[in-house]
């Protein structure tokens, strides 16, 4: 990420525009305008907290599903991929290179939710050739954040 404002937002999305401006030595008005523009044109899609579900006591189920598709004349994989992405259960959906076409991340309350989604919604779509479902066992890192409490800072308070 080259733009310093976008970069700061990625780690400090909860900063107010005044705080962002202060941190980057920019004018608050300029920050307001720039962020409005990005939100308007879809550069910024939204803001999210990265939560350790286990600590929050809300450990749901997540699965990574490899999906093979039949491409279509004119649009390739796009129409079908967007159709899959629009399901609420799908948290991420990527077209990938390699042995399959789509990587679909599905989240649900339990195994049943995910299994039901795969067998009833995903597999039954025309154009879906096959699926392979991998359930998440443990998370180590997400969106750049490590799932571990950092050790306290080891620096001495005063050094030359």
């Amino acid at each position, binding site marked *: 990420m080259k733009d310093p404002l976008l970069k700061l937002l990625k780690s*400090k999305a909860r900063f107010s525009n005044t705080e962002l401006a*202060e941190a980057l030595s920019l004018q608050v008005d300029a920050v307001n305008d720039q962020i409005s523009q990005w939100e308007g044109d879809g550069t910024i899609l939204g803001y999210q907290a990265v939560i350790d579900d286990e600590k929050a006591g809300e450990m749901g189920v997540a699965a990574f599903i490899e999906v093979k598709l039949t491409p279509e004349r004119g649009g390739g994989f796009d129409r079908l991929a967007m159709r899959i992405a629009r399901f609420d259960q799908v948290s991420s959906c990527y077209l990938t290179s390699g042995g399959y076409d789509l990587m679909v991340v599905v989240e649900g309350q339990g195994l049943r939710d995910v299994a039901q989604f795969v067998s009833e919604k995903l597999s039954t779509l025309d154009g879906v050739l096959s699926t392979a479902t991998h359930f998440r066992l443990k998370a180590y890192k997400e969106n750049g954040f490590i799932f571990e409490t950092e050790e306290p800072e080891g*620096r001495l308070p*005063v050094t030359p």
Partner: protein
Amino acid sequence: MDYSKKISKQVAGIPRSGIRDFFELVQGRDDVISLGVGEPDFATPWHIREAAIYSLEKGFTSYTSNLGLLSLRKAISRYVDDFFKVNYSADSEILVTVGVSEAIDLALRALINPGEEVVFHTPCYVSYLPSIALAYGVPVEVPTKKEDNFALRADMLEAAITPQTRVLMLNFPTNPTGAVMPVDELEKIAQLCVKNDLIVLSDEIYCELCYGEDEHVSIATMPGMRERTILLHGFSKAFAMTGFRLGYACAPAPLIEAMMKIHQYAMLCAPMTSQAAALEALENGEAAMLEMRESYHQRRDFVVGRLNDIGIECHSPGGAFYVFPDIRKFGISSQEFAMRLLEAEDVAAVPGDAFGQAGEGFLRCCYATSLDELKTAMDRIERFVATL
């Protein structure tokens, strides 16, 4: 036993570091926001730490050549050529040391005969004066001034040079002021060094951390200077590797050979694990280093802006990660200011006189601390100065 009679006069004559006194005061308190550190707030980038771990797994735990691993010296040679635009042979002109601190000690001991003079600019890093004294040299201070953004002035240097002067020590960007040298003034200094046949010890440990438009210029690149410069650099600051304790000296072979004579008996070689980490830093560390630099840059601008808003005059330093605000208008000494700030608001900043008398009336604030902490620290400083 009367131990005072057992300690050498040379060592006994060296005063206790002002920083150590202050450290002990700070350590006794909780909830202190410290602007008193002299090192990055980042942990060493993971790929560098991982390279150190890998070297241990592989059993690379032996001594290395006294000069340091040849592969590391070759990488240093390429890096120095690329960054400083000076070429040094990996075979005979580079010595890997335990931090720049060791290199300074080696160089001074290798160069100075008892009673010869070493000129250095103040405020400066705390080890310079004691290192000169321990090498039986005579320290000669040239103060730098706020009006010059703490750059060294050639005319003031010239006035300090005598027939006994052997060495000039330079440190730009400077700890504690963050000062950088304007190139035209550095050229005049180079001419003085040639004219007076001085050797220059140029400690450029902060050279990657420059925030201006202009690139860092080493005095070693100036006419007639490569042959009389010992260029000192290391990994602590730009690559956030302070605890690895790794630095290096680049100089003509006879000077490196002389330094190596001491190094081989006193230290044998720099630690193998640290050398493995340093090699990784040079080969693949640029991206992480630039990222850290950008973050320091942002924080410098923030801190300078806030201090001036608060009414504490602070110039925007060109490098390192320190600001050196002027607190003279409050009419109290820098010691008193720092103590009272600590007691009233739990913010630790180092009194400027710890870096030499020329630092009196100033405070060293290190901004290598999280933005959240810097914001709180600035709020607390604002509250504190309102009571003065």
